[in-house]
């Protein structure tokens, strides 16, 4: 298989379990996504495996008749979130009596609450899997209205006052039914919605959608236009990682570092506006190309000095003991857990997973440039910050290289086509997948899977690993995920 491919395999329902067993035990195979869609009034389930070493995505599908499908999360634990989601949206559960978490359907929601398929016959009575509170421990409810400028989310923190014993998250407060909204939409409107599903990864998610649509329509943008998209993607990574460093400074009470980080962040956002006309790069992409010409001069003149400011900040941070001490051994995600849970992006790379879709599943401009992927082994907050800093250097280099090779704008016509395809992209939060089924240019089913969906899965594990109450803010900053991306 060459790079940049996705193959589809049709399975008989009876073979699903053995297939998953075999794939989950194959080294280098990563569970990437798992979702349902209604096709000819019947539920069809799709499973996406990422074969990173073979540069291939494998989409497996089977019709889910009757009672459902075997519990896949027993062999591939990463599948748990999607098992919950398929139950909520289509009412089909993996085996009888399995405990599933509530994801996006609010508690006490009416049976008529809109879903992608039919509602389950019986709603789960508990909004979360059972957790343990006894002895001196108590549950500290935090949210859904949290700190200033933070997204809404409920955190159930089980603590004895200092040590964190358990943690669970409720994120249904932000469910906007994005996938349901996309049904029947044209591609341009779909891109508008996908950009706003998780605004901080607008380019990452949007490009994945564009790639899927362009594959179905069998068109590809001009290489110079693709380089413009690459510059937008790298700028998105730069400002997101800068924002994560600001959040780390804030959560460790380092006001000076925070202020200096905010200066870098604001400079990067202004750079986005100077190069592409929008601080968060909305509306840069268009199906078949880009809608805004990139100002390469602004990039060439402004990015290097901004990176110098960043380097001075990072040097100062690494030599500030009160900062580094809070990061070391905090919020550990072990490499084994990262592999087991199918994590992606900087969080996976900080836990020893050498994966990056720009390199492993090269697309667009990344076929012509080598991407260096930083990997750390310790899996703590320090490793995540270290990965982010290294990625910022690489992103700045890539953005300047791509701009140096010449940027273009404009779109090729995307004819209204019929068919389905998987699109992918490396957003700042890791691999973003978008599977699209088009009917004459209108969306029949779009599956939006931002990196946040995969990575929230490990937040409770990281928070439980020998941490105290006040470490949670630091761990959340180092994850730098969005609730909007999961609850979409």
């Amino acid at each position, binding site marked *: 298989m060459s790079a940049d491919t996705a193959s589809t395999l049709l399975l008989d329902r009876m073979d699903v379990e053995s297939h998953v067993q075999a794939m989950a035990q194959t080294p280098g195979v990563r569970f990437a996504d798992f979702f349902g869609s209604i096709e000819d009034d019947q539920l069809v389930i799709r499973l996406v495996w990422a074969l990173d070493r073979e540069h291939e995505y494998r989409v497996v599908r089977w019709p889910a008749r009757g009672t459902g499908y075997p519990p896949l999360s027993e062999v591939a634990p990463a599948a748990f979130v999607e098992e919950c989601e398929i139950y909520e949206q289509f009412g089909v559960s993996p085996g009888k009596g399995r405990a599933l978490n509530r994801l996006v359907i*609010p508690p006490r*929601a009416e049976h*008529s*609450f*809109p879903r992608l398929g039919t509602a389950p016959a019986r709603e789960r009575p508990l909004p979360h899997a059972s957790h343990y509170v006894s002895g001196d421990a108590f549950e500290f409810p935090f949210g*859904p*209205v949290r*700190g*200033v*400028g*933070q*997204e*809404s989310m409920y955190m159930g923190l089980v603590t004895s006052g200092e040590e964190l014993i358990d943690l669970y998250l409720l994120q*249904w*407060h*932000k*469910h*906007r*039914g994005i996938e349901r*909204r996309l049904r029947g939409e044209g591609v341009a409107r779909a891109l508008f*919605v996908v950009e*706003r*599903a*998780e*605004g*901080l990864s*607008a380019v990452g998610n949007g490009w994945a959608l564009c790639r899927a649509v362009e594959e179905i329509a069998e068109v590809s943008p001009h290489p110079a236009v693709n380089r413009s998209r690459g510059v937008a993607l790298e700028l998105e990574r730069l400002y997101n990682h800068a*924002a994560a460093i*600001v959040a780390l400074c804030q959560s460790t009470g380092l006001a000076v570092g925070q*202020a200096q980080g*905010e*200066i870098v*962040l*604001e400079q990067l*956002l202004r750079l986005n506006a100077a190069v592409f006309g929008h*601080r*968060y790069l*909305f509306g840069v992409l268009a199906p078949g190309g880009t809608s805004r010409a990139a100002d390469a001069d602004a990039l060439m003149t402004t990015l290097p000095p901004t990176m110098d400011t960043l380097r001075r900040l990072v040097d100062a941070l690494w030599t500030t003991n009160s900062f580094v001490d809070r990061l070391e051994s905090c919020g550990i995600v072990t490499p084994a857990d990262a592999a087991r849970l199918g994590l992606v992006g900087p969080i996976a790379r900080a836990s020893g997973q050498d994966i990056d879709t720009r390199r492993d599943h090269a697309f667009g401009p990344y076929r012509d440039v080598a991407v260096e992927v930083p990997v750390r082994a310790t899996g703590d907050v320090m490793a995540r910050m270290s990965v982010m800093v290294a990625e910022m250097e690489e992103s700045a280099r890539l953005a300047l290289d791509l701009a140096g090779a010449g940027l273009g704008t404009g779109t090729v016509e995307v004819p209204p086509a019929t068919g389905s395809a998987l699109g992918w992209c490396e957003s700042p939060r890791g691999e973003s997948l978008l599977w699209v089924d088009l009917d004459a240019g209108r969306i029949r089913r779009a599956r939006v899977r931002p990196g946040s969906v995969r990575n929230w899965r490990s937040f409770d594990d990281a928070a439980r690993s020998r941490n105290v109450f006040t470490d949670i803010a630091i761990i959340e900053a180092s994850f730098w995920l*969005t*609730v*909007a*991306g999961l609850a979409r």
Partner: protein
Amino acid sequence: MSPDRVRIDRRRLHVVREEERVAAKLRDATQRMFGRSLHIRTVDTGSCAVCESEIRLLSAPHYDLHRLGLFFTPSPRHADLLLVTGPAIRAFDRALEKTYGAMPEPKLVVAIGACPLGGVYQEDEFVHGQLERVLPVDVFVPGCPPSPLALLQGLLVAVGRLAEKVGAEDFTTLGEEEAP
């Protein structure tokens, strides 16, 4: 100077009665007073996380909210002003109602971005679509997202509105009722 302030000043030119002149003076005074210590609480009703990013930058060195006498507060009970982002998700109604209810009078609601204006999501089973359907909005700050400078402008307009609200309270009567 905010457009609202200009409007208020122009209106003052037509004030003839003594009481109204005093009221206008009071309004200006409260504007000055609250302008130096206005406390803000933020709440997200389903945003895409970008408006939050711009709100956080209000306290960054480039904008520095504090120099204007505006502060963020973690508790709605200390807040004069509620900054709301997102399309008003129905599942969030109760949390929003409790947050708004916890704020002392007089209070303001400032809607941030295109979502609360109905620019991104139509009203449906998930969202109200427009914030005004669930909260009395005093100032809308349009944009997707509005830049921190636009947010500051919106806040300055809102401070003027708060002064008007305070000016409309009948403090004299209240004092007489409570006197022994």
